[in-house]
């Protein structure tokens, strides 16, 4: 069992009082599986990903990744965990604008602890694997299309051979055709790299092709498939 979530609750202190974004959520995803999470806006999907990715700490509950409870890590260990065990793919790509595609991937490799001399070669391999031409690899994000940027971001997420890739609406900013290609890329990678992928999506077509799907509603898992 690669990832197991038990009784996960997250409460935010908003200006108008407490908001329970996640309410006693429990589920599990096996190693190498591609799971999707669907739900309306505000149902708690991003909150769930932020907890799985140790971007935030839960109010209550446990998250076991390869038998480590990441729910109670110190801020410093959280950072190390994100660097080595997690790959993020964001809806807005979130590449560093000042760095080339290659350097964006190398940055993740640096945080993952790879030796400086090896980073460039590894970054090239990754970018080639996601389908970026050598001349595109040297471009800054602003000089790449949305689909290309998302490919770079997937290469960055894969850089340190993470245990889990967390993707928050990775196709949300792309047209349906490009979105489909990106989804296929993620799908293929989960097969070849044996990486667990948890992707949030609006697209029921896409969700239908994943190994399992959880539906969130008001912070609770209401339906699951597979």
């Amino acid at each position, binding site marked *: 069992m690669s990832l197991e979530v038990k009784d996960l609750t997250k409460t935010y202190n908003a200006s108008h009082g407490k908001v329970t974004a996640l309410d006693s959520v429990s589920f599990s995803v096996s190693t190498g599986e591609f799971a999707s999470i669907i739900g309306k806006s505000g149902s708690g999907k991003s909150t769930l*990903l932020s907890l799985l990715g140790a971007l935030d700490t839960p109010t209550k509950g446990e998250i076991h990744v390869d038998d480590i409870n990441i729910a109670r890590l110190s801020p410093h260990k959280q950072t190390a965990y994100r660097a080595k065990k997690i790959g993020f793919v964001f*809806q807005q790509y979130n590449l560093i604008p000042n760095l080339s595609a290659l350097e964006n991937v190398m*940055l993740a490799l640096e945080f993952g602890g790879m030796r400086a001399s090896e980073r460039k070669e590894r970054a090239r391999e990754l970018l080639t694997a996601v389908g970026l031409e050598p001349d595109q690899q040297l471009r800054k994000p602003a000089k790449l299309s949305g689909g290309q940027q998302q490919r770079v971001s997937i290469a960055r997420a894969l850089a340190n051979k993470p245990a889990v890739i967390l993707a928050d609406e990775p196709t949300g900013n792309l047209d349906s055709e490009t979105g489909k290609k990106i989804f296929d890329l993620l799908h293929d990678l989960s097969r070849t790299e044996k990486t667990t992928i948890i992707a949030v999506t609006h697209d029921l077509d896409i969700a239908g092709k994943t190994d399992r799907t959880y539906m969130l509603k008001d912070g609770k898992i209401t339906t699951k498939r597979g």
Partner: protein
Amino acid sequence: MNVVSRGIRNALRSPLRSGAIVIMLAISITLIVAMLVARSSVNAKIEEVKGSTANQITINPAGIRGGFGGGDPLTAEQVTTVTSTAHIGSVASTLTDQAGTDDTNLTPSLELGSFGQRMQRFETSTGDSNGPTDVIQGDGSSDSAPARPARTPRTTITGTTDANSIASDGSTLTLTSGATVDSTSSDLVALVGKTLAEKNSLSVGSTFTLYGKTFTVNGIYETGNTFQDSGIVVPLATLQTATEQPGAVTSAVATVDSSENVTATVSALKTALGDKADITSSAEQAETSVASLRSISSLATTGVVGATIAGAVIVLLTMTMIVRERRREIGVIKAIGGTTSKVITQFVTEALTLTLVSGVIGIALGIFVSGSITDGLVTSASAAPKTTQGQGPMASAGGMRGTGGPTQRFNQGLQQVTSTVTPQIFMGAAGITLLIAILGSALPAYLIARVRPAEVLRTE
């Protein structure tokens, strides 16, 4: 590609903005350097002035200053009191006198001039010692005023235990020929000023008459000061005997063993001599003289602090703006495993790069303009020393003058502050530049630490 090179590269991310910031910062740093140079140059001058006056205390008999005033000279007993006061090492005692045509066969080398005439306007017959009440005499008729003799310039005779004390720069008296006199003796020997010697064709070995005695010229001195070079220097005891004023002294300069003891010694002397003498320490006089320099120095210090704060504020505002702009980027770096300290290092490097570039420009520019800024500050603040220059009866023509105290010496050179850029200033400026970068980065660093990585999942 590491955190430092990313920081440097980010500094050039927006060339226009970076350029504007560099210009503003460079101006601040230019000001800092110029003020540091002014400050250290002026402080060096202050030290020089204070150092040159050593630890001297001047004791003048109450009411007498050089050839002016009235009252009694210091007595031998009082001089002994001074000599035996704790912390006093040596005492140079001086008695001055004016020799008229009756006293000497020498022709004075100073013209009487309007000053000399004015000084002698009350005087009557020089040979008549009967005093002013006897001015109207003879047949008693009030309209037959006595014939006043022509006023004549006089020659100043200095009897001293230290012939060097008349040197204008306070060091050794320069002799153009001959040898100095034994100031402790009571021999009939003299040092003659160059101008007076020329006027009377005196050379080493020549003799002349003074107070009815025959003096031998031991040496000819030159001070460069017209008044001094028209005088005669003899041993103190010789003049005391010749003028029948045994033990009398019109000015004594005591040297204290250490500058820390000057104040205590001044009060000890004031207690011992009471109102019989006016006691001034050269340290006090120097303090007064350098007061305007001190105000320049503190003005410059204020300038340094002000410009440093301005520089730090420029960096702070810039970096705060940049951090706000790149909030999402900071979140992303944190989200993909960059530590907060790495992000802060990157931004501090960026601030340092901007500051260092400004520092190089500012320091170069500062060194370039520091000379004229120092001059400007010193000149604009020099009104004070100028007005004190005229203090005391120290006019140098006409036959009378006080024994030029050290005060005059300070004032002459006060405006000659040479601005020099020392390695310390360089280090100081570099240090302050660094301080600006660090101070200016502190708040942005705090803001960076507060960026929550979870924010990157927000889709606004």
